[in-house]
């Protein structure tokens, strides 16, 4: 090929390509968005179509505190990733643990809400259409938060053993893309379930 290379003088030597991790995560986010869209459509389509109670207006309470937790975890993970890029590993670890705490608090909030709905109001996934669509949509989101938390914990473990440095900042950036996506989905789910749906 060396002979071939010399015969094309107009090829520019600079050759920048996007990072494969970011492209792949963007692809995954596209796919996940389509899945969430279908569940959101189902939720909206079945609003008010339940034949029996309880209805969203009767039982749902807006989880403002836990929403603030999840949304602010987007900020903390952003600054954690930035500090890793500058090799502030201790600051990174602190912000990372804060992110995990905020995500865990959100998950606790969801669990508490489900406990209340099931034991106080008798709403399960098979009670009525509201139950079916509510638990699947919020559950799908909670599943993604859980998956994200597991990945964050793995990174935290590497952080404690001192293996997180600038060299890992690209991977952390990819993971934080996923976490931002999970937060952005919650904005949609929150709007649909707690604002429009009541």
């Amino acid at each position, binding site marked *: *090929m*060396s002979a*071939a*290379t010399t*015969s*094309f003088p*107009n*090829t*520019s*030597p600079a*050759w920048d*390509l*996007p*990072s*494969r991790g970011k*492209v*792949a995560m963007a*692809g*995954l986010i*596209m*796919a*996940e968005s*389509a*899945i969430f*869209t*279908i*569940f959101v459509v*189902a939720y909206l*389509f*079945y609003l008010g*179509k*339940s*034949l029996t109670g309880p209805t969203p207006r009767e039982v749902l309470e807006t989880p403002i505190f836990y929403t603030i937790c999840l949304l602010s975890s987007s900020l903390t993970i952003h600054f954690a990733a930035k500090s890793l890029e500058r090799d502030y590993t201790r600051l990174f670890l602190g912000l990372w643990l804060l992110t995990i705490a905020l995500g865990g608090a959100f998950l606790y909030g969801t669990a508490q809400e489900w406990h209340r709905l099931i034991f106080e109001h008798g709403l399960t*996934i*098979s009670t*009525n*259409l509201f139950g*079916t*669509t509510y638990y*699947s949509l919020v559950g*799908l989101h909670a599943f993604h938060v859980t998956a994200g938390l597991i990945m964050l914990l793995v990174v935290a473990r590497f952080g404690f053993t001192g293996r997180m440095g600038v060299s890992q900042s690209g991977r952390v950036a990819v993971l934080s893309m996923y976490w931002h996506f999970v937060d952005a989905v919650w904005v949609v789910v929150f709007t649909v379930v707690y604002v429009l749906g009541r």
Partner: protein
Amino acid sequence: MSSNAITIPGAQIEARPCVDELHLWLTTVDHKRLGILYILSALLFLVIGGVEALVIRIQLMHSHNNFVSPEVFNRMFTMHGTTMIFFVAMPVLFGFANYLVPLMIGARDMAFPRLNAFSFWLSFLGGLLLYFSFLGGSGLYGAGSAPDVGWWSYAPLGARAFSPGHSSDYWTLALLVSGFGSIGTAINIIATILCLRCPGMKINRMPLLVWMNLVMAGMVLLAITPLSAAQIMLLIDRYLGGHFFDTQAGGSAVLWMHFFWIFGHPEVYVLIIPCFAFMSEIIPVFSRKPIFGYPVMVAATVCIGFVSMSVWAHHMFTIGMNSYANSFFTLTTMAVGVPTGIKIFNWIGTMWGGRIQFKTPMLFSIGFLFQFLIAGLTGIMMAASPFDWQLSLSYFVVAHFHYVIVGGILFALFAAFYYWYPKMTGRMLSELLGKWHFWLFLIGFHLTFDVMHIPGVLGMPRRIYTYEPGRGWDTLNFIITIGAFIQALAILVFVANLVISYLKGAQAGNDPWDAWTLEWSIGSPPPVYNFVTVPTVASRRPLWDLKHPEDPDSRYE
């Protein structure tokens, strides 16, 4: 280019023991081996799905036939449809994409080799899961049963009450699992194309095959996922007592139809766009001309990608949508014919004035052009909703979509097999057997699917296991069945050709077709590492530049 291989002095390549070879194939993460595994698994399921088609055709050969029971007939058409779409068409196209995309962009492998292997095994095991339903459909308490509710599994047929046992569960899980495999492969294809191109391979210099697979992968992300979401909902309904598609609790059967077809129609384009990609590589080489209208081809592909996302409800004209929805989906469906028509004109423009070589790949490509055009025309007919009200769920529809899938997709695939088999194995496929394969398949195809339009117009509904004599359908159905067996014979010739040529075919050399894309610059089969040195390209036809340094394409682009 003959020196383009790494030779290690003293190292002798010895034949490995069988077990080692098998172990190598099972644990491989090499894109070429995985591509071949995808293709082989698809061929296996093609034979199975083909046998199911033959069972259907024997049963319908004449009126009041008793070859199989109605229950078995239902299982046959369900399994035939599911198999052919999910475990033949998708894997074989992913296989070619896996094999060709890295070679065409001068890359070492796919972006994520292990994800690649994971995706392949997901889709293959998904297929096995589907077929396990024959044994485990009733939970292994005796005779099992395969799913029998049609490949759409329309609600409420998929619900527990109407589909007891586990047959629908196997169907759902098989599609869910292989769907995740498809998503993994699609992400991999996108990342490979965007991130691993060799120097000089700008986005507007990529071979059209690479471009079209990029669009296909993007569509997979947006079109397969709604099906996965709907399958999750169906599982919730079946296992957790949910009410998504339970009409007695206020659920909607129509919502399932929408979710299914939001997947289902883009899926057709997911399958046909890689076939357009084969055509866009094969027709220029055998016309000895560069592709006509490269930028327009790219634009038309992207356009099809977008428009095909908004046509799904043309499968649902007969369920009673309002007139605005009917008009909208009629218009979008007809609009998707415009970029498709542009492509057909571009391929004809490529052939026009070229020195056409009628080798087997080109014969199949010309067959594709002709038949895909007819399939598109019957598609436009049925896009008109009043016309569709008359013929929906008749054999006219069956004839139409088989014209697309067999006459279009399968012919393009055969062209691709004859074109790239030398690259994959190092041996040429026999031209003589290839011509027999082509003409037998062409005759069988037209006998079956041209004639199949007529009983549809006469009112024969699809999915019936038998029919009354004296409706004028008997002779036609008999001809259709004969055609099906001629196609089966042609497939046998094809398989024989694959096997015989693998053992005794002529040596292919690096570049048997005098082609222009990078995969032909390296050995056949390519070495594990693909390229000794990373190639640098300066035009859309790097090999043309290499062969004609006095008049390279890079001077004009």
